[in-house]
């Protein structure tokens, strides 16, 4: 049979989880990562990254809106998704995730964004007319109070929401890892480390994305990139990426050391079908190269222009690594037989509803949504009321 080597059970020949299921954890991870970066400012008081705070929140929202779309498109009958809200079953991880998703969207992200932008929204409503005024009046929910005390209340409430948001972000993405880690029939997935690895790779991908979006948008707007800001983000990216890489290597070493009955099969797969996506793309190109680049930056002082170039290259490679990791987990886990005697091939479509174009569209769609969000709620640091260039980010 074409594409099949050795012996496969009949139900293993075609892959059920397509490239859209690769996109799904990738997009969800970007949400969690972007939010964690935002929380660095509010909770951990890392003031240097303040210029990216609002952009990170909007990025998280844009990606969160798209996060369920790959699943809905993959399953078909998207109207049935409401069933899991109306009649949830407590043994269904997916149903529980639905509630985590709504909680994260409504109680965390929307609320925090609303609190942070409330002053801007009200000021825009006051200074505009017609439909624009109506839109901003609606966004402000009719409130018009931006007294100092009211803003202090917002600040306090925002802090609490972010504090709740951190475990929520971990829960949101931890679930995605949990879905794979809890499939005990599949040795490639079944690992308690899976949710942890997913969370750390999510943080890495989200931070790298916001770094790139910040640098790109600042450049497009003809502004100066805040070097202490990008230096600090790159530093955090480097540290978290090290933890992520070590965790993934721990998982790998554990598999090699334990060498259970699946090991020969999985090892063969990593050396053949997954060699390019796992060894070359994920480990060498996507992990070791950016780690080396970001590591060199930590001990050597390059000029800002060189540092900026290195940050963009590293962040792009990090995205390659994390997307490859999702691919290797989702697709890799379906390429070998449970009999450990055979391997199949994933034939990806091009223009089908689960093909390359759709996957690329869904990955890029959040950037389009972000563009709209940025138009409605400009997140630029200099637009923040009371912003003072001399004091720079320390006022934020």
């Amino acid at each position, binding site marked *: 049979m074409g594409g099949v080597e050795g*012996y496969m059970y*009949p139900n293993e020949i075609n892959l059920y989880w397509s490239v859209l299921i690769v996109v799904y954890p990738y997009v969800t991870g970007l949400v969690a990562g972007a939010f964690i970066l935002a929380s660095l400012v509010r909770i951990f008081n890392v003031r240097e990254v303040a210029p990216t705070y609002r952009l990170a929140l909007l990025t998280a929202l844009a990606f969160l809106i798209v996060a369920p779309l790959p699943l809905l498109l993959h399953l078909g009958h998207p109207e049935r998704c409401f069933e899991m809200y*109306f009649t949830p079953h407590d043994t269904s991880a997916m149903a529980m995730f639905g509630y985590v998703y709504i909680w994260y969207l409504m109680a965390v992200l929307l609320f925090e964004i609303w609190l942070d932008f409330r002053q801007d929204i009200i000021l825009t409503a006051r200074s505009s007319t017609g439909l624009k005024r109506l839109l901003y009046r609606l966004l402000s*929910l009719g409130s018009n109070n931006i007294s100092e005390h009211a803003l202090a209340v*917002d600040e306090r409430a925002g802090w609490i929401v972010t504090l709740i948001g951190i475990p929520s972000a971990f829960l949101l993405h931890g679930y995605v890892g949990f879905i794979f880690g809890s499939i005990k029939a599949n040795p490639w997935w079944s690992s308690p480390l899976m949710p942890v690895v997913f969370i750390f790779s999510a943080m890495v991908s989200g931070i790298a994305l916001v770094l790139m979006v910040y640098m790109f948008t600042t450049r497009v707007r003809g502004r100066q990139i805040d070097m202490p800001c990008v230096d600090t983000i790159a530093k955090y990216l480097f540290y978290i990426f090290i933890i992520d890489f070590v965790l993934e290597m721990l998982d790998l070493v554990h598999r090699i050391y334990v060498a259970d009955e699946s090991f020969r099969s999985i090892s063969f797969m990593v050396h053949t079908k997954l060699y390019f996506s796992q060894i070359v793309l994920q480990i060498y190109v996507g992990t070791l190269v950016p780690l080396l680049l970001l590591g060199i930056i930590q001990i050597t002082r390059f000029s800002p222009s060189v540092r900026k170039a290195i940050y963009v290259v590293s962040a792009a490679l990090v995205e390659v690594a994390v997307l490859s990791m999702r691919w290797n987990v989702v697709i890799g886990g379906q390429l070998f037989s449970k009999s450990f005697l055979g391997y199949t091939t994933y034939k990806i479509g091009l223009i089908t509803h689960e093909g390359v174009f759709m996957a690329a569209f869904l990955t890029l769609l959040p950037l389009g949504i972000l563009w709209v969000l940025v138009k409605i709620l400009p997140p630029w640091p200099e637009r923040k009321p009371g912003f003072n260039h001399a004091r720079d980010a320390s006022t934020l």
Partner: protein
Amino acid sequence: MKTFRDSEHLLRFALLFAIVFVLFLVVRHFVVPRSFGEYGHYRGAAIAEIAARPIHFAGQSACETCHTDIAATKKAGMHAGVHCEACHGPLASHAANPASVQPPKLDTAVLCVRCHAASAAKPKNFPQVAAAQHSGGLACETCHHPHSPAIQGGGAK
């Protein structure tokens, strides 16, 4: 009072949240079937609806009531454990009205390989053949009697 005035906008967001929640409950009230959860995590009325569907299978004992000779042959052979309707299909209508409803004639070249086509996934002692090489396209019943398929003494049983 001042504290309330300055935090009143938080209540607006809470109200939005509450409205969405109430809307959810209202929609849920209308879209979830009344009998959902009556017996378990499914629509209770589905049981009565399924029970009311016409029965298509007559059952082994109904066949044996009339076809005593075939039942005896089958019992002595390898297919003793295979129910009549597993091959002949659902025949409740034939059992209810034997004269006017006749079961369709089966093509053994197609029927037998459903179970007996060679596959590495099947137990080794299960009779299985690569049909094209084994019979060259001949119908299985040329050599094997479907109701007692083992070939003994070179003849079809």
